[in-house]
């Protein structure tokens, strides 16, 4: 998902026998669906796992601005341009809420960004694919925001209060994004031959990477058990992926577009779609940094940060001058008070 393969730092799920009394009390609160708040006691592994998960999610929002930003200056109508700019602005806002949520766990935004820029922190694999035509902007809204919602709606009930509340705010906006993306696809799949070809090609390129967003299969997910016990992961990767496929295939049918999976078929017995095997070697390579755009995306973020350094320094220097000026004014008033 926006947070894929989050390491809990633990080899096995903790049982009550492993836990000291305060941890047992903590787990009992989680089991009773009572939210954990920043000032509450929490196990170090829970805190660290959440930092990894929330910061990955935040970085994904910020890095995700780049593939869409690639089309802002080329949007085909003024209305579509305005919608796209507003969407990207929402994503920047999501990044900010999530950085703030992570900061409640005792890490600074600067530290999180330093981890991203040094390649220590991850972001979603999906943003390492290129946006080649305008149909990609439609497909991202439809599939990528669609997959994000699928994952994030359950997270609105997660155990950590600030994260759960950030998710509630974010989910509302993501559903707009998905509808707007689908609307682009609707126009293109009903459009000229060239537009239909772009729509088809975009779905062909984004389908499998979208399924990979949910992370490795449950069998290969070593950390999911503990995250589930902590209620920071409420549904398994495979459950979420299946829901996504079940929701999305009829939407593709309505567009008259073919999902690029020869094994895809409705299964009457299970009441779900069966679908083909995911190429996990591609997924692991993209996660490792070998996707088509990993280098460009990270470089773009590093450049923005480095080129902005003098601006941030100027703002800070000015704020300090202001503060010093105010302090001098207060001192001189106090001085006058004493001499009066």
């Amino acid at each position: 998902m926006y947070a894929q393969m989050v390491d809990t730092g633990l080899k096995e799920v903790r049982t009550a026998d492993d836990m000291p009394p305060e941890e047992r009390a903590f787990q009992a609160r989680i089991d009773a669906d009572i939210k954990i708040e920043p000032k509450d006691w929490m196990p170090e592994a829970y805190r660290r796992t959440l930092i990894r998960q929330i910061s990955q999610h935040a970085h994904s929002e910020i890095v995700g601005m780049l593939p869409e930003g690639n089309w802002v200056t080329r949007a085909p109508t003024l209305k579509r341009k305005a919608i796209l700019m507003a969407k990207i602005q929402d994503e920047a806002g999501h990044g900010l809420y999530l950085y703030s949520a992570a900061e409640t766990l005792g890490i600074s935004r600067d530290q999180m960004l330093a981890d991203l820029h040094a390649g220590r922190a991850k972001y979603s694999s999906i943003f390492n694919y290129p946006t080649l035509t305008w149909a990609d902007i439609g497909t991202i809204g439809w599939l990528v925001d669609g997959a994000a919602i699928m994952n994030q709606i359950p997270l609105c009930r997660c155990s950590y209060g600030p994260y759960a509340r950030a998710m509630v705010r974010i989910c509302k906006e993501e559903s707009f994004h998905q509808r707007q993306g689908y609307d682009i696809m609707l126009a293109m799949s009903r459009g000229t031959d060239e537009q239909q070809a772009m729509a088809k090609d975009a779905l062909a390129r984004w389908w499998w990477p979208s399924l990979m967003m949910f992370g490795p299969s449950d069998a290969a997910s070593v950390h999911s058990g503990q995250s589930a016990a902590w209620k920071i992961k409420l549904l398994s990767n495979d459950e979420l992926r299946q829901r996504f496929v079940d929701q999305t295939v009829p939407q593709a049918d309505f567009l008259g577009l073919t999902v690029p999976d020869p094994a895809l078929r409705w299964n009457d017995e299970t009441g779900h779609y069966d679908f083909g095997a995911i190429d996990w070697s591609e997924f692991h390579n993209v996660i490792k940094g070998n996707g088509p755009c990993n280098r460009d995306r990270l470089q773009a973020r590093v450049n923005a940060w480095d080129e902005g350094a003098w601006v941030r320094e100027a703002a800070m220097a000015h704020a300090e001058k202001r503060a010093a000026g105010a302090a001098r004014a207060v001192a001189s008033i106090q001085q006058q008070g004493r001499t009066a």
Partner: protein
Amino acid sequence: MTEFVLHASMPKIVTDLILFEYLLRLGDSPLILAQRLGEWVGKGPIVEEDLALTNVGLDLLGQARMWLAYAGEVEARCSPRGRDEDALAFHRDAGAFRNLLLVEQPNGNYADTMTRQFLFDAWHVRALQALTRSCDPRVAEIAAKGAKEASYHVERSGDWMIRLGDGTDESHAKTQSALDNLGMYTGEMFASDAIDAALADAGIGFDHAVLLAPWREHVDAVLEEATLALPAAEWMQGSGGRGGRQGVHGEHLGHLLAEMQYLQRAYPDSQW
């Protein structure tokens, strides 16, 4: 230039032709500046600034759309074609654009972008305020909405001028250099040509020259606090009625339009 005055006796079609031209002038500057701000997406010095720049860009794009939509309606009244906002934005060549030269200047660094923004905003807010008194109700209505946004924009860009000018030595030098480079594009904001004069006379537009003194006062006050100064004006670009508002542009606009218009030009018969 020969003075041309609009008379009540003049046929409506002539007034509309002039009004159409004027509406392009009003719409093209925010359109082109919004396009420039769109180039910053994902590249701001801090996420909050990315958000804020996009916000300003969205406001300007919204204003451009209102001006151009109205321009298309007026065009339909006075010519066989009435183009919609997209036909006007995507199917005109550079020579048919009526934006100020200032807004087509490249983004450069953050000081260049903020200086361009501040010099424009300080003019824009006054131009829009003047137009709220237009006797054309649509013009007055669009201007009133835009003026509220522009007064927020100028506050923000003015704050940045102060931070950058009175920040570090590096930010001061970069911002002064931006002012030195952009100062010569401010002259055409205060030059009225026959079209401006005709519409001012008809009570639809306003005399651009009267904005100069209050603009200068505002800019100087901010720059003083920022420990910066406008360069001495030797020669203003676009002088003599041959500036962006008359369709005489620099080299940058063609590239900006090539990018902005590409999809509409490549696939002209498509609905998006």
